[in-house]
């Protein structure tokens, strides 16, 4: 039984308002033999400077401390890779530190950066994340990723991380999904949606125009998950500039970027799913205890929480984050989301963990059309569009950069700059990519608030990054 003290449930506070000022990213792809990682990081920082009409040197002159997200340094045989990047970015002798929390590394890097500014340590700080997993053969890559599991109790079992996650997918599939063909098709719809949105994103690694049947015909990885249900393994970098209020408004004066209030919270749960202990469901502001009283009757097999069907870390990150930002109902309070769709089924699990739908009913967020830019059932704007970047399935999963890329994506909607950042023919050409004839502007009109979820593996770490137009705060 896990039990929390009231001190542990205290809602975190930032000591002063913190703002996202600008952000940038590189091109994302499966392999980039033509570029060193530092070149990708320079691309990202240069873009961040350009968005606020500054030269890289001008922007750098504001940066006071640096936070680097890079998860898998064992892939590159280079410890302290952060120091290499820091030097190449010309940011010595500023203080810098590396952050690594698996798939949540990008979000965790923002978490640390925001705290540095909130505390007053820095008025302007850099969050930069990157990853490259293209420099080992795939089977060795699978082994290296499996080293993020418990090395004595899990890694020797196949040296394949997908297997450690897939047991959770199987439980959800059978208990909440009831092994229904209709649910299997809903999962496939998520892949179609994310690969489809990636078609309009020049930075995206895997744009595809596919159908539900294409997903269902793709090779089985671990039943019911198929190849097109799974996220990408990408190379790339992303960065964000985080500031206090005075610096934020100074840096953005007479630019298109409005400083956005940023709140980041984090949760965790055991690295080893085997060690999950039973507990009561922690409730979000839009839930009541009685709504789960008969959960096991509605879904036979639900005998534990979080068991293997939920992510406690995501639930706690939402609990802390919503409390900090004053969110009482995520479906009403947010306009756009970027979720960590490592697998189609974990995307559905997350809808429940963060309160978009109650436990057991995550699929409805897709089936209702709420998750789309344009609801396919009504032709009207989706109620709360998610993963318009293409997400991890269509855009990228360059682990240390992912949570930062998601944050840039959300910000681009609130800045009302989505079209500008995605439609430029020259950018498509520079990346060697063909802009589709049916390119569509996915700007969420009037977006004022959004959230990005960054998630590690079987749910060991999760962060919520909440962005708000400062004139549309909730509390």
């Amino acid at each position, binding site marked *: 039984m896990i039990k929390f003290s009231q001190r542990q449930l205290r809602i975190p506070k930032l000591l002063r308002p913190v703002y996202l000022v600008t952000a940038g990213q590189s091109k994302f792809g499966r392999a980039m033999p033509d570029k060193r990682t530092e070149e990708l990081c320079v691309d990202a920082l240069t873009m961040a400077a350009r968005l606020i009409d500054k030269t890289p040197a001008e922007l750098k002159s504001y940066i006071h401390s640096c936070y680097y997200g890079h998860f898998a340094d064992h892939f590159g045989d280079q410890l302290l890779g952060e120091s290499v990047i820091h030097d190449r970015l010309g940011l010595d002798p500023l203080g810098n530190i590396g952050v690594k929390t698996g798939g949540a590394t990008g979000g965790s890097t923002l978490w640390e950066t925001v705290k540095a500014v909130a505390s007053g340590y820095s008025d302007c700080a850099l969050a930069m994340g990157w990853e490259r997993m293209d420099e080992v*053969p795939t089977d*060795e890559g699978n082994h290296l990723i499996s080293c993020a599991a418990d090395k*004595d109790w899990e890694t020797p*079992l196949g040296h*394949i991380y997908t*297997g450690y996650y897939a*047991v959770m997918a199987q439980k959800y599939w059978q208990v909440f999904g009831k092994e229904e063909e209709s649910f299997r098709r809903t999962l496939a719809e998520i892949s179609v949606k994310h690969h489809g949105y990636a078609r309009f994103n020049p930075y995206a690694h895997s744009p595809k125009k596919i159908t539900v049947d294409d997903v269902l015909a793709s090779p089985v990885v671990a039943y019911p998950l198929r190849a097109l249900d799974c996220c990408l393994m990408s190379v790339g970098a992303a960065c964000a500039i985080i500031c206090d209020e005075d610096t934020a408004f100074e840096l953005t004066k007479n630019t298109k970027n409005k400083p956005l209030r940023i709140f980041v919270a984090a949760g965790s749960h055991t690295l080893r799913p085997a060690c999950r202990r039973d507990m009561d469901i922690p409730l979000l502001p839009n839930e009541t205890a009685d709504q789960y009283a008969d959960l096991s009757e509605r879904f036979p*097999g639900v005998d534990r929480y979080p068991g293997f069907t939920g992510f406690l870390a995501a639930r706690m990150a939402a609990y802390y984050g919503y409390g900090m930002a004053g969110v009482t109902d995520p479906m009403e309070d947010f306009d756009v989301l970027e979720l960590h769709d490592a697998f189609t089924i974990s995307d559905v699990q997350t809808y429940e963990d963060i309160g978009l739908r109650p436990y057991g009913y995550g699929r409805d967020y897709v089936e209702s059309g709420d998750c789309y830019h344009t609801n396919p059932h009504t032709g009207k704007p989706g109620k709360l569009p998610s993963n318009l970047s293409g997400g991890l399935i269509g855009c990228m999963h360059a682990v240390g950069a992912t949570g930062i890329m998601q944050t840039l994506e959300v910000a681009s909607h609130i800045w009302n700059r989505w079209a500008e950042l995605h439609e430029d023919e020259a950018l498509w050409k520079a990346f060697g990519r063909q802009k589709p004839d049916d390119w569509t502007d996915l700007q969420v009109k009037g977006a004022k608030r959004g959230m990005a979820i960054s998630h590690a593996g079987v749910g060991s770490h999760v962060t919520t990054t909440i962005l708000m137009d400062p004139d549309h705060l909730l509390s």
Partner: protein
Amino acid sequence: MSKQGTVRVVNGRYKFSGEFHHATPNTPITNDDEGGKLVGVTNPRDMTYVHTYGGEAVFFEGLGKGILYGTRCDNPKCEFTGTQYIPFRIHCPDCLGRNTVVDFTKTCRTTATVHTFMVCERSGAFNVLDKPIKFINIEFEGVGTILMSYLSLGEPTIGMKVVPIFRTTDPTFTITDLSWVPEGADEGDLPDGFTFG
């Protein structure tokens, strides 16, 4: 002929003998799309890590003897005293007291049930298990946690009753020395080296 590295502990320190790494030359990586232009080099690494099981050593040694150890918090001052753990936890996660090592072999033989499973067609480098790997997560009566392992016979289903088998011949002293088969399986059908203990 090089001798594979081995390690013993003598006078409280690791004593290494044999070879733990092999130096292999780098090779160039060239770009065939651009007339063989140099892109980079390979960095071969062949080395052996050394690792202690510490307080869990008794568990891994027990598998080769057909014993499945878990642990229990017996601290009377702990709010959750009496909680039992498989996988083995050296310390209680609540009070951080040292747990008592308990032989759970009988409990596992009589109460093990598949909580969830996955059949995995792929593996990573260094895998030694036969594919497809049938991952199973097993719950036990009176135990607070759920063990990850693999099924050696039959097809897994949720709720399936299983019993442990142990690599008692030439154990590897890793978690792969423990596997599971459906209740009622015949000893003659077990994989080479495995017994019911």
